[in-house]
């Protein structure tokens, strides 16, 4: 009788373990990196989006919970997907352009244009052309190389009026409230576009994992023109596969 009971309990345990090992959960998180560029009439915010995915069975999920208690404990992503969002801002309009499967290097200004390389396999040096990226010519590539290797374009995260453009990173200021507690205070960048003042209020979400950009224009209420929750989110298998499908 006792042997039968033990066998029953063992069977139930085995079924539970098999179930836990066979049912999967899917997590996606997105990390942004952004820069604001502007000239006399136009502002562009280039936001690189790095989608990272990881799926676990329930046993793996439990292990991950334990791992994330420890520093360096979180698992590396098993899937990645890159894209670029470009926000074009003038005093009167905001336009959004999205380019899929694109991992941008830093944006470099040269002779009034903005360039970036695509770091995905098969990528190349590209030029932003009002509404989209187009392949840079070999002449442009040579010019850019000379400019980058010289002192024409500083490697700093912020600058004013270089090759017709000014630049700020989409990031606030980290302020330490104690040796172990920090907050990211919003960065406020006020610029003049077409003779009108506009203000960008920016936070990268480094501490809170909630990134955003607000736009303040004279005579208009502040407007949140972009935001992103950078925490990992559980998604359905279909959504996971859609995100990481090779396009």
């Amino acid at each position, binding site marked *: 009788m006792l042997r039968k009971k033990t066998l029953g309990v063992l069977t139930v345990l085995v079924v539970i373990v098999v179930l836990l090992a066979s049912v999967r959960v899917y*997590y996606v998180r997105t990390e942004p990196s952004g820069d604001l560029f502007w000239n006399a009439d136009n502002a562009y915010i280039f936001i690189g989006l790095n989608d990272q995915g990881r799926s676990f069975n329930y046993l793996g999920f439990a292990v991950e919970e334990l791992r994330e208690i420890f*520093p360096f*404990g979180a698992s590396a992503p098993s899937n990645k997907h890159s894209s670029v969002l470009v926000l074009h801002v003038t005093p009167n309009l905001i336009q959004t352009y999205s380019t899929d499967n694109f991992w941008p290097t*830093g944006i470099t200004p040269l002779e009034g244009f903005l360039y970036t390389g695509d770091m995905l396999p098969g990528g190349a040096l590209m030029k932003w052309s009002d509404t989209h990226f187009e392949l840079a010519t070999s002449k442009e*590539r040579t010019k850019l190389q000379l400019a980058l290797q010289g002192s024409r374009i500083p490697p700093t995260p912020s600058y004013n009026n270089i090759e017709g453009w000014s630049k700020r990173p989409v990031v606030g200021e980290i302020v*330490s409230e104690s*040796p172990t507690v920090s907050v990211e205070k919003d960065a406020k960048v006020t610029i003049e576009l077409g003779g009108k003042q506009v203000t960008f209020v920016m936070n990268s979400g480094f501490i809170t994992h909630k990134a955003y950009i607000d736009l303040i224009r004279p005579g208009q209420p502040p407007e949140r023109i972009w935001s992103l929750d950078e925490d990992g989110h559980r998604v359905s298998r279909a959504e996971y596969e859609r995100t990481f499908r090779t396009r």
Partner: protein
Amino acid sequence: MELLTTVSPSTIFSRYLQTFLGAQPISHNDVTQVLEGTDITASGQTVQFTMQGWIGLEPAIQVGVGQGPFKVQIERFDTSANTMSAVTLQGHPVAGWRYWRVYSVGTNEVVVETGAVDTSGPGGKNYLGYWLSRRLQLKFWREYLEFIPSDMSMSGLDPNVIEVFGAYPTVGVWNPVSPSQSDILYQVCQASTCN
């Protein structure tokens, strides 16, 4: 890491090491990230690192308390030697020093190097995290270094850059025979013991 490139060590130092670019979000580093826009210009500056978990901050679970942010302070910043170093600050899971430097070993041959003397931070959690994640720590710095030639090539800085495999591998080594601990500390603070 050894590179064949026409780019000068000082350009590599200012573009990649001063900015920790290989750990900024743009690098897609899997392990750890620094704040976007980081730009070191003097010793005494602090740099914040964070490690993002998958499950950590989900309201129902709230166990992801080990992922930062963590701070280091720049101990040496020497543009004449294209070298900088940092010491970990209170709350960091690792206790110790690390340096980064770029130097030339021949015409158009540049070495980018990092080395550390460290142990776990105080407490059982840091001790376990440190010893369980040794592989991930090496992965972080390998990705950090390998981002440099990728970016140099694709950003247009040097489309012809070549990474030389062999004498200066990007795969890190724990407790190497060479350099010695005192050699590493010399790069950190130019003395055999550092603050």
